[in-house]
């Protein structure tokens, strides 16, 4: 399923957009020569709505400058980008957490700004994960929510989690729990799904489970047929109370305050890998878990002008930039297979979701319109 998804994405996204891509990929080895020759290219500033730590990496900054680009980032959640009133004029590119969020932005460009020429590309992707702590994993295991897979990574069973939520289970209700005596409900902490992609991805996962293993494509019918499931999913967001608007602040506070504040949080796999590679001390005893099912979030770039297009093309074809993306934990779309092995080589154990033997299902996402509708109905 995963391989199909990648192939599909490559066909849909790359082919109409890039003509020179294949050639550029083949001549990846020539990059250095080209760089020396072109060191004096005029530098264009790309104003990017949305942000990622990738673009602050000095190696990325240098590689982009050598190719004539400088990036100004505006930190903003994926959904918040679509609401920017000056999106069409003040920016060249939007950096969205998922292909769905990118579609939402393209729709906003068309409907709010009359921009009909927007295109998108997804050069990197990252599966959604749950980051937690060892004592919490032990409690989840008691509840049948956590189990260890054959390759040593932890799997978080979403249906068992939803059952615990249905029982309104608090941490202190877990039998034999002497380590985490919190009267709070056992809930995954997310960003506000109405503003941020990562929170919305949990909505996609939970509705897929509640809809018997298929993405919800008729929201009203789903709510009618399964009112209890709909309410249950809503409670996984509402019962958390106030939520942050963007993933990076959630990660920052998660890493700083440890499990006392956020026992388990919804993140991108790249958040874990990036921290593990760049600043392992900050990660401390944090444990990576894969929700089963999970979804893949495609880091998607939207553009509507020449500069944005040239920039997006470079991102998806420049081998150095692709290698650097892996350093920050992104799966490069051109390199789906060896990613888990590369990570193992760096001492980071991740699930190989491309492996047909994997016991984590990768669920397809509902369409952008349906997911937005689900979030509006059940996310707040």
């Amino acid at each position: 399923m995963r391989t199909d998804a990648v192939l599909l994405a490559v066909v849909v996204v790359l082919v109409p957009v890039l003509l020179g891509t294949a050639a550029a990929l083949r001549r990846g080895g020539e990059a250095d020569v080209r760089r020396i020759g072109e060191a004096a290219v005029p530098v264009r500033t790309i104003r990017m709505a949305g942000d990622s730590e990738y673009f602050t990496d000095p190696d990325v900054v240098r590689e982009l400058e050598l190719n004539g680009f400088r990036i100004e980032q505006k930190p903003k959640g994926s959904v918040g980008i679509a609401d920017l009133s000056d999106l069409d004029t003040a920016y060249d590119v939007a950096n969205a957490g998922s292909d769905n969020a990118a579609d939402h932005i393209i729709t906003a460009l068309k409907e709010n700004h009359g921009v009909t020429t927007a295109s998108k590309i997804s050069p990197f992707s990252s599966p959604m994960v749950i980051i937690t702590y060892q004592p919490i994993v032990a409690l989840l295991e008691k509840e049948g929510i956590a189990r260890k897979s054959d390759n040593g990574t932890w799997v978080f069973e979403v249906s068992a989690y939803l059952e615990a939520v249905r029982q309104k289970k608090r941490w202190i209700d877990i039998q034999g729990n002497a380590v985490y005596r919190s009267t709070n409900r056992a809930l995954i902490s997310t960003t506000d799904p109405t503003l941020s992609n990562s929170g919305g991805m949990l909505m996609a996962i939970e509705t897929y489970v509640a809809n018997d293993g298929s993405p919800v494509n008729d929201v009203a019918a789903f709510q009618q047929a399964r009112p209890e499931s709909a309410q249950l999913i809503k409670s996984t967001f509402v019962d958390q109370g106030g939520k942050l608007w963007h993933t990076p602040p959630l990660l920052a506070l998660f890493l700083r305050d440890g499990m006392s504040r956020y026992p388990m949080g919804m993140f991108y796999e790249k958040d874990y890998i990036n921290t593990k590679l760049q600043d392992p001390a900050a990660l401390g005893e944090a444990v990576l878990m894969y929700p089963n099912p999970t979804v893949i979030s495609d880091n998607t770039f939207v553009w509507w002008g020449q500069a944005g297009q040239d920039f997006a093309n470079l991102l998806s074809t420049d081998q150095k930039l692709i290698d650097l993306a892996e350093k920050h934990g992104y799966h490069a779309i051109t390199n789906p297979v060896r990613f888990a092995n590369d990570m193992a080589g760096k001492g980071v154990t991740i699930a190989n979701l491309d492996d047909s033997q994997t016991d984590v299902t990768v669920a397809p996402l509902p369409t952008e319109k349906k997911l937005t509708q689900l979030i509006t109905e059940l996310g707040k």
Partner: protein
Amino acid sequence: MRCPRFARVLTVLAAAAMVLAGCDATPAQTDQQPSGPPYTLRVLASAELGDLQGILDDAANATGVRVQLTPSTTLTIARDIADGKADQDYDAAWLASNRYLSIYPGAQAKIEESTLTMSSPVVLGVRTSVADQLGWREDTPVSWSDIARAAAAHQLTFGMSDPGSSNSGLSALVGVATAVAGDGAALQPPQVARAVPRLREFFDAQTLKSGSSKELADTYTRRPEQSVDALVEYESELLTLNRTGSLREPLRLIYPSDGVATADYTLNSLVSAPQAAKDAYARLSAYLRTDDIQGRIMRETHRRPISPHLLAQADFGVHQSFELPFPDRLDVVDDLVATYYGTLRKPARIVYVLDTSGSMAEDGRLDALKRALTSLTRAGASSGPGASFQTREQVTFVPFSSTVGTPSTFDVPETEPQAVLDQIYKYVQHLPAVGGTALYDALIEAYRTIDRQAAQDPDRITTVVLLTDGEWNKGSTPDAFDAFYRTLGPDIAAAPVFPIRYGDNSNAAMDHLATLTGGQVFDGRALPLTTIFPLIHGSQ
């Protein structure tokens, strides 16, 4: 790893990324502050952020961004942003918590960018001797329910800021309500009503109120310490109080075991701000997130830095505190606040000691006094805290000239208060202006009145407001008043005098009265009485 020199294009994320990249506070980093053209950034800020002034002065030198802080309270700022009132006059808003921007419809859409700057949980600071009596050590798990129980059993009195305007006050209200009626999830509307009986017991033990957390800490240091056993406050304010050395008894920090609400001070730029302001905002927020400044914030204000590495170097105690699920629904917050004002809040008893001597006829002083008091009977409840007499309040007037007039007391009922407000209006219109200034006789009569009233109805927070325009020249001497005051029981003496500088009265005498009784002087020459009365009133 090499730590590069970042250009200003990287701005906000640069600091965070450098921390993540392992670039801790190296000397090289201090010369990497993004600087740019001078700009004065107009920032609406939670009042307690005034303690960052030194850091902000240095920020102006390093980045060219001068910060002009306008102090307010967190909930008020969120409402102002939602209503569009902040659009014209401010470029940015620095709130104790952004959670209210999610609650008030339309507020979130006014925000361009947000940066976490530092954190402080709302906790309970208990006088050491009282904590010992209750058996609350640093490592004892004490829940909001335990705190409410101790308050109901008269083992604990406390002070707290107004939950209708202040994040710290509302955090405590949410904490207790969630503990007694919640099910571990964020509070839902029906649960508020269920929490009322226990909440009422809790608030019966409140002996100190204030408009903001900053004012609460300031007021506490002026009051006789025995009159308040504990403060609901930011960890940072309590640590600061303990380190000033001005307390006779340190406060022991209790982190409620079922959950604290952490303030994650967030600096936001407003969509409506000009581009130059947004650039300045980016420079300032990057500066505030450098390790240097984060370290200074931690050392100078006792707030927690965002970087886990810096926090690991600090000593914030051994407790494990969970985070309270904070309701993000407007109906829940409105319901809680309305319940607090309507039935939970300990009602105020305010005694106005009013000079009606002949000199008050000069310069229209008596007319100004009448106008200010009249406006308290006419403003209507929706005009903001303090703008009018509140339901359940007890208001007493003690007029004096050469002798002390008969005290007149008005009880504003819980429902349909207008008839009583009309009586107050009529009373105020008939105040005369004739004779001398028997100031201390009037104050003695005020405390005797309070003594009589408290014997029948003890559960009120009492304040004396003194307005006089001249020097004492009749009746008891200042020394006689001091001697009298010292004979009062602690409950009665706990009522502070708020003297107002007015006309020709003696600064020294007014300062002395405020210091003696734990009150605060207001300057009626600099501010109109129509502003001062709501200020005093709103803090009750």
